[in-house]
């Protein structure tokens, strides 16, 4: 007899445990998977970017500079006002995130919708985002779009000041996606003022 009763019980237990192991490791012990989704190109504190701010941004209600890189097929520059951003379909969700103990409610248009408003009919590939404190990232848009990030205009129903990470804050409904804690933090750029579309296709 090649495999008796005990042996079969052992094999069955192994199979059950292997399945359980896969389940646990996927859902409870989350590991970074090393996919380069976001590349930090400019660390916060480097203020050289601040001087590049468009003067139009100083006008009242102007919030977001949009740039199209040459060859991207997008307009070279446009500044979006609060009103323009508010007129897009607004997403509202409540989620936990790294910078608060409690869940908070964010509201604003989808990043995808803002990009389409600036550059309609394009598929966006590579973006460059900048924040007031000098933090800047390059990101692969299709990879992050699966998390449906928004450009939040309000936090818990109130407009954000620069001191509480406004005026614009990229946020995703993290609680809806089982991603490792803090793994998307680099995408969630606060004090956002500029987006450059580098590659479309």
């Amino acid at each position, binding site marked *: 007899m090649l495999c008796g009763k005990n042996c079969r019980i052992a094999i069955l237990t*192994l199979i059950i445990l292997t399945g359980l192991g896969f389940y646990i490791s996927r859902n409870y012990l989350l*590991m970074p998977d090393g996919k380069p989704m976001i590349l930090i190109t400019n660390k916060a504190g480097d203020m050289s970017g601040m001087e590049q701010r468009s003067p139009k941004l100083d006008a009242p209600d102007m919030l977001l500079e949009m740039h199209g890189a040459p060859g991207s097929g997008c307009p070279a520059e446009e500044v979006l006002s609060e009103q323009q951003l508010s007129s897009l379909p607004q997403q509202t969700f409540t989620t936990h995130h790294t910078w608060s103990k409690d869940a908070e409610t964010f509201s604003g248009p989808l990043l995808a919708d803002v990009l389409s408003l600036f550059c309609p009919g394009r598929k966006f590939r590579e973006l460059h985002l900048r924040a007031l404190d000098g933090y800047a990232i390059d990101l692969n848009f299709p990879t992050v779009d699966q998390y449906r990030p928004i450009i939040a205009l309000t936090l818990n129903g109130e407009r954000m000041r*620069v001191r509480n990470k406004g005026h614009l804050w990229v946020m995703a409904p993290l609680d809806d996606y089982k991603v490792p804690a803090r793994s998307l933090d680099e995408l969630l750029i606060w*004090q956002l003022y500029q987006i450059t579309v580098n590659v479309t296709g």
Partner: protein
Amino acid sequence: MYVRPGAAAAHTIHWVLSPIFAFAIYLAILNLGSTYFRLENYQREAIWSLVHLNTQLQSTQHDIQLYGLGELAVKSLRTRYELLWSKFDITLNNIEQDAMLGDINGLHQAIDESFNEFKAMENRIYSGETIAPDTLDKWIADLSHSHEIINRFLLHEVADADGSYSKSSWHKLLISLYLVAAASLLFFIHIGYLLLTLVRERSDNLFQLSHDSLTGLANRNHAMGMLDEFCREHMFFTLAIIDLNEFKQVNDVHGHPAGDQILMHLSSEFRETLSHHGLVGRLGGDEFIWLVNTTDRELVARYFQKLLERLSQPYLLNEYQLYLRLSAGATTCHGDNPNPKSLMAQADAAMYSAKKARSPEISWYKPDQALEKNFTSIIGIF
């Protein structure tokens, strides 16, 4: 049934326990990896927020100086003020959420105090009035002081391998390591226990294969195998065949269980005497074989005499006193007769002559002795 004590059987539970312990190791290793990445992430975040707070503190001092020199508009100063505010906020939140950062004595309080000093500047900055140079100097001094304090914490407590942050994070990693070690230990102890059980079972099985189940003496196969081997190796030895007289009557009168009891008693007497000087086996029924590692007949007779002395005491069976009487025949082999068959026939013939003579002593085979015809019944195995 003669079973060696201490025989243990492997139960089904062990077949389930092994995979479970292996699984525990797997989980513990996953947990270790996960903990490592989490801690690494936390430490990076902690350093990140403190470094950026410090950078903003420096940039703010710089901007206040520029403002004092009239080279910076109040609007830019306000933006800088807001940015530094957000960094204080984020750092305090980090300290509250990261227990290891919270464990650093005095860090939260130091940053909180700096933040409060900083908040006090708000009225002046947003008042719309020109800010006096001595106020600006005090701000610069305050911010510079905060910068120094934070730098000290950063260097000595967070980044330093001896700092309390590293110790706390190492402690957490160590707990995960202990879990891996504990799971592995359980697994290996269990595997070791299983191996031990298997080894014991194997030796029990081997024992039962070569021993008679009633008496625990070597069985016929084993004894004959030894005889074969002795012959093949041309060894010097004595072969004796011992027969229990009138055993059949005992069986008839007292029943088979009584017969078994007598055989067991006789075997234990063998073990006490003959077994010390050679191998005793049961050929079947009431016949036994004794292989002795010597050809010295006197010595063999003396060994046998000890057995006879013990058997001179009656054996009590159901209030009957039984005297066990043996007939024994033997032959010696000087390495020149490698034929076990004929050796058996010789010993058997000698045993029959002892039986005929009703002698309790060992009867030795004489070359001129006629080999009895019925010896084949005993050595039927050949």
